[in-house]
């Protein structure tokens, strides 16, 4: 299990760490049982993401994917940001070890979750295909 240089760079010098007080949208995904929690804060003006911050509890890959995902959506239109795929994050990081692929999925979900929150706030409907579905990854529901 070896991380790429890009991953190590984004892990050791994560971009956009922090919180946004008056965020336009906030998304939080993951849970303590799985050992990863990502929280993304968006500042949106005219549907453009003007600022983005994250807080992450998790492994090196979780932090690096959070960092990269925020970089990839900064300055983008929300509709474009919504389309950010985990694959795009992985590619931008020059790959992830197989056991860490779920972190990129988490990053994708965190972005969508924050946009969803924004849409909820402004009363816009999220396109069906981008709505978050429970993946049943955590014990909370999957083992019941």
């Amino acid at each position, binding site marked *: 299990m070896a991380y790429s240089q890009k991953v190590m760079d984004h892990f*050791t010098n994560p971009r956009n*760490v922090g919180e946004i007080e008056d965020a336009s949208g906030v998304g939080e995904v993951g849970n*303590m049982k*799985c050992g990863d929690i990502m*929280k993304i804060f968006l500042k949106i003006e005219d549907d453009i993401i003007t600022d983005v911050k*994250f807080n992450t509890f998790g492994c090196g890959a979780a932090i690096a994917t959070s960092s990269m995902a925020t970089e990839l959506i900064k300055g983008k239109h929300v509709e474009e940001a919504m389309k950010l795929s985990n694959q795009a994050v992985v590619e931008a990081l020059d790959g992830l070890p197989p056991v860490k692929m779920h972190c990129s999925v988490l990053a994708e979900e965190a972005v969508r979750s924050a946009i969803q929150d924004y849409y909820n706030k402004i009363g816009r409907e999220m396109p069906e295909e981008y709505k978050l579905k429970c993946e049943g990854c955590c014990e909370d529901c999957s083992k019941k």
Partner: protein
Amino acid sequence: MRVYADNAATTQVSRSALEAMLPCFTEYYGNPSSMHQSGQDAARLLINARETMAKYLGASPNEITFTSGGSEADNQAIISAALRGARKGKKHIISTKFEHHAVLHAVEKLGKEGFEITLLDVHEDGIVRLPKLEAAIRPDTALVTVMYANNEIGTIQPISEIGALCREKGVIFHTDAVQAAGHLEIDVTKQNIDMLTLSAHKFHGPKGIGLLYCRKAIPLSTLIEGGAQERGKRAGTENIPAIVGMAAAFREACENMAVNMPRVRALRDRLIDGVLARIPEVILNGDREKRLPGNANFSVTGIEGESLLLLLDNAGICASSGSACTSGSLDPSHVLLAIGLPHETAHGSLRLTLSEYNTQEEIDYIIEALPPIVEKLRMMSPVWKKK
């Protein structure tokens, strides 16, 4: 500065062990089963190594079976005791919740094959309680297997008392002493241990070699069939260099235990005190006193173990989170869950394991390096309540 503080995962080979091994590769390289001089030279090295291991364990040489390491020995011990039990209609096995996977998985496999398994609680302090064990022993109990000291949190189990109890009840007692050997006193006779596992690479011996002590009265089954090596109990050309290296390392560790271990214990205490004093919301896992001289295991609230390890590694510090074997997996350590840690804390564990090779300077370096790293991770953690 580079600090290796992961000695519970593996250790470097000591100079004297390596020196003992070297001639075995190119000079005394014979097969001990061979009749000729070259073979008989190797056979003599094998006999001497067996005597050394037996001596420092309080055993007889013919009670020692060399194996490829701790995992193999654990498997063979458990399977042997189970087969013996099955022949007598005894199909109940007692172990603990925080054994190494080499024991747990072997026991679980037997569970699937019709054995009944009781896994004892290890409480918050990581120590098995004797009355609970006594209550668990049944007329059909074939085996009690309790590790000597835990590989993650370092807690030492009441082995002598367990040995006495099992002997009294007529139940075979096996102990996985992989983490204890070379660090704590062992005397299989005085401690009433029927079977014991150790592995050389945990006490500055080579990897790929270990042994199973099995008391004469107890029949051993064969895991690896083939040639008649090891009295027919373990086939395969004997790994003479590794066996010789193990014996040299074990002798060295046992002879110097009285000097080394208090020193290591002092380093560990300095580390524990330093970390607890400098970093808020850190707890020491496992009993503070009844623990391996070199083991410090912390839960650091609000951060995840792997990211902590990576930043420590960037600072030149080799540490671990959970056991080395399971890293890469997503589950938090079964050991930490067994002592009742909630998932969030179990995910944030840090194991620093010292040996006589560590220095006070290194410990002070860790104490300096750790707080800003923890602070950095906590600052980006959504779980940590920022001040």
